[in-house]
C-alpha cells in the first residue's frame, strides 16, 4: 500500500466515532482540488454511481500517475479525495497493485456495500484502469515516436530537418516557434513543462498535425468542402496553464476556413457552424478555437 494511503487508513482507524469519521471524510473532500469542467467527460465518469463522480489521471514528469477527481455528492467526494490523496504521485505499478480490501480498515461502512452503487470500489478500479492505460500509452509513445506528455520525441521531422531537438529552447513557456511548411499549413507544437527541461518539438507539414489537429482538419474539410483551410496548433502559447497540463497538448487552435458554406451566414452563425462540427473535440480536451471564416468571394474581393 502506498505510504500516503497507509497514513490515511491509520488516521481513520484512530477516529472511533462514526460521525467523526464522516467529518474527517468531508474534510478531505472539501480540500480536494476541484476538477475542471472540461475533464468531466464520459470517459472519466465512474460507472454505477448514484451520484456523479469523475476521475482524471495523467502522468507527471517522473512518470508517476497523478489523479484528480470530483463529485456532486460530498460523501463520495470525500472518498474520492481519500483515493486521490492516497494514490496520487505514485508509480503506476504501485497503484494498480492496491487491493480494495484496505477499505475495510477505514471503518466506513458505506464504502463497503456490494451494491452497484458502490462508487468507492468503482472509483478505485477506474483509477487503476486509467493508470494502466497511461503506462501502456507511454510505452507505445516512446516506441513509435508519437507525442506523449513528458516524453521527448525526435521523430517526424519533415522537410524542416534543421530543427533538431538540441536546438529547441528549454523550459520556456511562452515562446513562439513557428515553422512554415510548403503548402501553407502551419503546424508546430511546442510543449514545455513549467520549470521542467523536457521539450517536445514536432514540426510537420500538412501530414504532421497531431491527431486532434488532423481530426479537426478532416472534419472541416469533409463538412465544409473549403476552398482553403489552415489549421494551426497554438497550444504552445498556452503551455503551462492548468488546462493544458496533462492533456496530450492539443488544446488551442487557430482555424482559418474559406468555404462557400459560409455564404449568407452572419459571423456568429459561421462560428457556430464550426463549433458545431467540432463538438466532440471540444468535449474531449480541445480548449479553445480561434476561427476565421470567410467565403471565397470575400477572400478574392479583399
Amino acid at each position, binding site marked *: 500500500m502506498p505510504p500516503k494511503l497507509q497514513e490515511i487508513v491509520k488516521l481513520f482507524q484512530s477516529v472511533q466515532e*462514526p*460521525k467523526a469519521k*464522516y*467529518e474527517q471524510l*468531508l*474534510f478531505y473532500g*472539501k480540500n480536494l482540488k476541484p476538477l475542471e469542467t472540461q475533464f468531466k467527460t464520459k470517459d472519466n465518469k465512474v460507472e454505477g454511481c*448514484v*451520484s*456523479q463522480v469523475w476521475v482524471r489521471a495523467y502522468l507527471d514528469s517522473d512518470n508517476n500517475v497523478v489523479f484528480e477527481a470530483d463529485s*456532486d*455528492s*460530498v*460523501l*463520495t467526494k470525500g472518498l474520492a479525495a481519500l483515493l486521490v490523496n492516497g494514490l496520487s504521485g505514485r508509480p503506476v505499478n504501485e497503484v494498480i497493485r492496491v487491493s480494495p480490501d484496505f477499505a475495510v480498515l477505514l471503518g466506513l*461502512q*458505506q464504502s463497503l456495500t456490494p451494491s452497484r*452503487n458502490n462508487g468507492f470500489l468503482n472509483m478505485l478500479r477506474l483509477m487503476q484502469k486509467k493508470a494502466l492505460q497511461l503506462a501502456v500509452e507511454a510505452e507505445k509513445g516512446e516506441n513509435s515516436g508519437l507525442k506523449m506528455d513528458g516524453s521527448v520525441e525526435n521523430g517526424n521531422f519533415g522537410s524542416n530537418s534543421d530543427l533538431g531537438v538540441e536546438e529547441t529552447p528549454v523550459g520556456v513557456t511562452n515562446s513562439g516557434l513557428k515553422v512554415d511548411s510548403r503548402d501553407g499549413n502551419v503546424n508546430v507544437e511546442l510543449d514545455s513543462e513549467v520549470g521542467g527541461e523536457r521539450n517536445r518539438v514536432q514540426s510537420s507539414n500538412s501530414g504532421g498535425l497531431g491527431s486532434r489537429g488532423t481530426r479537426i482538419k478532416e472534419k472541416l474539410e469533409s463538412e465544409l468542402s473549403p476552398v482553403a483551410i489552415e489549421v494551426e496548433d497554438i497550444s504552445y502559447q498556452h503551455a503551462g496553464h492548468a488546462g493544458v497540463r496533462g492533456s496530450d497538448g492539443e488544446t488551442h487552435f487557430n482555424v482559418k476556413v474559406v468555404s462557400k458554406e459560409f455564404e449568407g451566414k452572419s459571423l456568429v452563425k459561421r462560428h457556430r457552424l464550426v463549433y458545431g462540427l467540432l463538438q466532440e473535440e471540444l468535449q474531449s480536451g480541445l480548449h479553445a478555437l480561434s476561427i476565421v471564416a470567410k467565403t471565397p468571394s470575400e477572400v478574392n474581393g479583399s
Partner: protein
Amino acid sequence: MPSTLTLFNLCCNSIMGTVVHKLPSFKFLNPTSSSSHYCSTTTTTRTSKTFRAGSRRRSFSISASASAVREDNPALGSLSLGHITRPDFPILHQEVNGSRLVYLDNAATSQKPTAVLNALQNYYEAYNSNVHRGIHYLSARATDEYELARKKVAAFINASDSGEIVFTKNATEAINLVAYSWGMSNLKPEDEVILTIAEHHSAIVPWQLVAQKTGAILKFASLNQDEAPDVDKLRQLFSRKTKIVVVHHVSNTLASVLPIEEIVLWAHDVGAKVLVDACQSVPHMVVNVQSLNVDFLVASSHKMCGPTGVGFLYGKSELLSAMPPFLGGGEMISDVFLDHSTYAEPPSRFEAGTPAIGEAIGLGAAIDYLSRLGMQKIHDYEIELAKYLYESLLSVPNIHVYGPAPSENVDRAALCSFNVENIHPTDIATFLDQQHGVAIRSGHHCAQPLHRHLGVNASARASLHFYNTKEDVDDFIQALNDTVNFFNSFK
C-alpha cells in the same frame, strides 16, 4: 384532556406495562420520538429509550410542535392503523446501525405480515406440488390454492372473471407481455402510444422496444406548474392515431393521482386502449377495474405486502383472447407437434412454465390481510399520514418536495420525493441510514425522464405504508434536520 391522558395511560399500561408521568401538562396525544424537530443541535442518539415491551422499542418524549403537527388528529394517534398493524410485521422491530429501524422505502417494496409468511411456509411444508396437471392429492390441493389466489386477485380489483387475471413475475413483465403480445400485433407504422414523462421505466422501455420494431411513435405528456402530469395536455395528445395510452395511476415520485376514469373515456372515444400501471395504487386504495373500465392493468405482489416473484396483468377477456402468446413453453399450450403448436385459452396462454406457486398463494394471503383491514380504511389513514409527512417536510429549510401540494381537490399518495438545496440526496440517504437507522431511497426511482424534466440528477424519497406511524415521520424529520445541519456545517 383527562380523557386523553387516560387513553394514553391505558395504552401504556396494556402495551408497555408502565405508566409515563414525566410529561408536562400541555396537550399531547401519543408518544412521539425524542426531542423536538426544531432543535437544530440535537444529538444523534435518542434519549429516554427506557420503555421496552416485548419486541417493540419506542422512545418517548414530547414534540414541541408548531401548527404543522396535527396533534388533535385521532387518525394518527396511538390507536392508528399504523400502531395496530405494526405487531404483524416482525421485520420492523429491529435496530439498524444502532438506531431503531424506520422503514420509509415502501414504494420500492413493502413489508410482509406474518400471515403471508405463514402462508408461504405452510405451502412448502404441507402441500407443495406442481399445479394444473397433477393427479395426486398434493397437486390437487396446490392447484386449488393457486387458482383460489387468482380468484382473490380478481375479486380484489373487481375483475369480472378470474380468467382475466394473468400471473406474471411482476408488473414489469406484465407490461412487457402487453407490449409484445398486444403491441406487436396491433401497432402499425405511425400509430401512436401516449404516455407521460413521469412513467416508470418499465412502462416506457417495453414500448420503445416495440415501437422500434413496429414503426409506432411514442408521445409524452409533460407536467403542469403544480408538478403533476398535465391532464389537459395528455388529452390533447389523443387522436385517431392513438392506439394505446400507458399511464400510471399513482406516481412513485410525484405522489400525484391521475383521473383514470376520465382518461379511459377520452381514450375510448378515439378508439384507443388504456394500460394502467397500478403498482402504487392497488396496495394503497380501492381499485375497481370495472368502474375504471381500463383495458389492461398491472401490479406487483411485493408492493402490496405479498412476496416477490409474482405480479399480475388484468386484461379484459375479449382482449386477452385475441392476443398471441408471449412466452412459449409448457402450460400455455394445447397440443404440441413438431412443426407447430396450438395454444391454451387465457390466462394459461400467457403463463408458460411452472409458476411461482407458493408466491401466488402468498399474494392471496396478502390480499386476505389487506381486505380484512379494508382498503378504504388504509387509504383514509394514508391520506392523513401523507399530509402529515408533506407538511413536516416543508418545515425543513431549503427543501423542495416534488409533485402537487395536497389540498381539498388534490390527494397525494403517502410518499415524498425531495431535494435539499446544495446537499446531494445520496449524502442525505447515507447519513440518515448510518446515523439514524432511517431507510429512504436516493436516485432517480426508475424515472429518469421525469428527473431530467425536473432538472435534477436524483432525488431522495420517503414512502409510507399503512404500518408506518406518525412517530416514524417524526423520527424521520428529526433525523433529516440533523443530517441537513451536519452537511450544511461543512459548506
